[in-house]
């Protein structure tokens, strides 16, 4: 039995291995619910969940919205295109003004990093981080890890490789902190400009050569490349980027036989991953979407359902 005590889900940095296991177990049971005819459970009935998206992301927002509705919560959506935010109202003002709706959970996506802890001063609600700047994207990492756990059976002692724009990737950071807590080893690979300063101090191995980095890995996470980065000389041409960092069938052969490949999506085929791998990788990417829903139901349930002290789960 593990007790859940966290009011917020802000960073994987703050979660313990045990807490992540609680999330995974709960996500498994929610997956069963999704397969039933009546998909709804009343866990969050009467609760107000606000999707507060200062940065657009239809996929993440939809996933959270659906998760909240499956738990019977009332869902409000505020996005950067809706009135108040675009009128230059400050982020803090928006959060303060939302208090009049008495929200129970705020799901926040924002383009500035590491800012959520300071928002806690302005709301009584639980905050779930749906991506803050380049800092973290905890639910994405949880769903990635959950997917790996389903396929591999365990998250222990794996070699995990993350490839691409490490610098600007919140998904990458959350995955590093998560996998490390399960005593898996994380390698990162990309052009040097994409590797943050003194990043080895995080306990990751840094590679610039994908052919070497990929040797013996159990899990590969390919990160999405934003073409604008080329303008800031992070790399020279897309052609050269692809030549050095694209995942091809030949390269994949160097990894462990049962290596799995993930991508936070949407994939730029033939940029991050060669399209010849499409059929092979597609089922797992779909699985990630399904698992995303279950993970988000789990975290909403854990921070939102009444009497947190009763939320104990049998392992």
């Amino acid at each position, binding site marked *: 039995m593990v007790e859940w005590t966290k009011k917020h889900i802000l960073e994987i940095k703050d979660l313990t291995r045990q807490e992540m296991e609680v999330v995974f177990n709960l996500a498994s049971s929610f997956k069963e619910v999704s397969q039933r005819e009546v998909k709804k459970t009343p866990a969050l009935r009467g609760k107000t969940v606000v999707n507060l998206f200062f940065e657009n992301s239809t996929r993440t927002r939809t996933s959270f919205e659906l998760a909240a509705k499956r738990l019977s919560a009332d869902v409000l959506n505020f996005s950067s295109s809706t009135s108040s935010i675009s009128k230059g109202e*400050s*982020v*803090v003002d928006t959060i303060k003004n939302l208090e009049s709706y008495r929200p129970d959970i705020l799901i926040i996506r924002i383009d500035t*990093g*590491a800012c959520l802890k300071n928002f806690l001063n302005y709301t009584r609600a639980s905050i779930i981080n749906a991506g803050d700047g*380049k*800092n973290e994207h905890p639910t994405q990492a949880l769903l990635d890890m959950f997917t790996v756990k389903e396929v591999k059976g365990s998250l222990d002692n794996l070699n995990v490789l993350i490839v691409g724009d490490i*610098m*600007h990737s919140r998904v990458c950071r959350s995955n590093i902190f998560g996998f490390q807590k399960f005593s898996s080893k994380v390698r990162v690979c990309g052009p040097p400009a994409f590797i943050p300063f003194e990043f080895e101090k995080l306990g990751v191995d840094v590679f610039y050569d994908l052919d070497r980095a990929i040797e013996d890995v159990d899990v590969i996470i390919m990160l999405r490349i934003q073409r604008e980065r080329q303008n800031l000389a992070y790399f020279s041409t897309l052609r050269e980027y692809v030549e050095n960092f694209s995942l091809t069938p030949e390269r994949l052969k160097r990894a462990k036989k049962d290596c799995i490949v993930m991508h936070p999506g949407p994939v730029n085929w033939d940029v991050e991953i060669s399209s010849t791998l499409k059929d092979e990788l597609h089922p797992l990417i779909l699985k990630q979407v399904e698992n995303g829903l279950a993970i988000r139901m789990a975290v909403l349930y854990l921070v939102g359902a009444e009497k947190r002290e009763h939320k104990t789960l049998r392992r």
Partner: protein
Amino acid sequence: MKILIKSATIVNSKNTILADILIENGRIAKVERNVKEDADRKIDAKDKFVLPGLIDLHTHLRTPGREDEEDLISGSCAAAKGGFTTILCMPNTNPCIDNEGVVEWIREESQKIGIVDIIPIGAITKERKGKELTEFGALKKAGCLALSDDGSSIDDSYLFRRALEYAKMFNLIIVSHCEDKSLSLQGAMRECFISGKYGMSSIPDIAETIRVFRDIEIAKYVNTKLHLAHISCKKSIELIRKEKEIFSYLTCETSPHYFILTVEDVEKSNFHGNFKVNPPLGERNDVEEIKKALKEGIIDCIATDHAPHSFAEKEAPFENAPFGVIGLELAFSLTYTYLVREKIISLNQLVEKLSYNPANILGLKERGEIKEDAIADLIIVDVNKSWQVISKNLVSKSKNTPFLNSELMGLVELTIHQGKIVYERPFFPSINLSSGE
């Protein structure tokens, strides 16, 4: 009005003496033992220290333009409360201090207030755009002693050379904000392990050092005075230490936050806007090097870089918050607490960094030292009193300091400016205001 300060322990940069001080007609009339003369006001300074009024080479008073963040009255009060009697204000106002009209207006208004001497620093280029030189002669005539485009560096090396040459003709000092913007970009904190861990947009220390190097080389070439603002990193100091051996026109300053705080404090604050300054806070070895350089005299001055910002602006996410912290009310106590009490520098050296050297750099011969015939700018401090930094007790209109709620040692009890008591804790007698403590 005659003021007699009895049993004063007078701390100048070069010596400490026990004497009485007689102040008459805005000047120090006598510094000697057992002054018998009658005075309108007698002050017993037993067990306290009397220091020359502090001089801040670097403040932002937000006036004209952002009087909601600071105005000349609140800025004057904050200065007097912090022991400053002369402050220089930077030209990044709206309108910009780039012509004699704005300089004269600030001079006149601040003299009417009469709490401290406010000397505007004129812009080097029109609207601080780094394109066209301002009229240095007109700015000088209106009262400027120094010029700066603080907030940005002049990227065009040709123009910076010409600015130094032109300043030489008018005997004006160029104060340089050293930042290579092509390296610092939109960074919010020092590039380091912590910035990488949180994916925080960041500024490498070399963005400062590279510009320090260029500016010194041009000043040497032109052979004229150059003052470097807010030095924040070890690499810059190593360079300055070497150059100072061969180039005597070079001076520089740092600010209290750079010898106290590090990137770890930024992380501990959960990336609060009050910890965002430009240049950004450095690492532990930077702090150690700055302390060493202060001790050795490589860093000449401690300036506040007082930069008021509204609460709302500083509550914004770290990456969006503006740069800068307030410092006028804190600089003396921070320097005393973190440098003098820690035995890094002596109280005499504190006076040197916060009064004597700034006066010297500006050529203000009658300030920065308690001596007969000097202007009667002096302060009485009690170094055994501690106080807590509480937002509502700060007289500055803005409260953006990373030191909120900290306990500091050393309190300014009394500030005399041009022979007049302008602050007597907690009152500002000339304007009938209390600091609310």
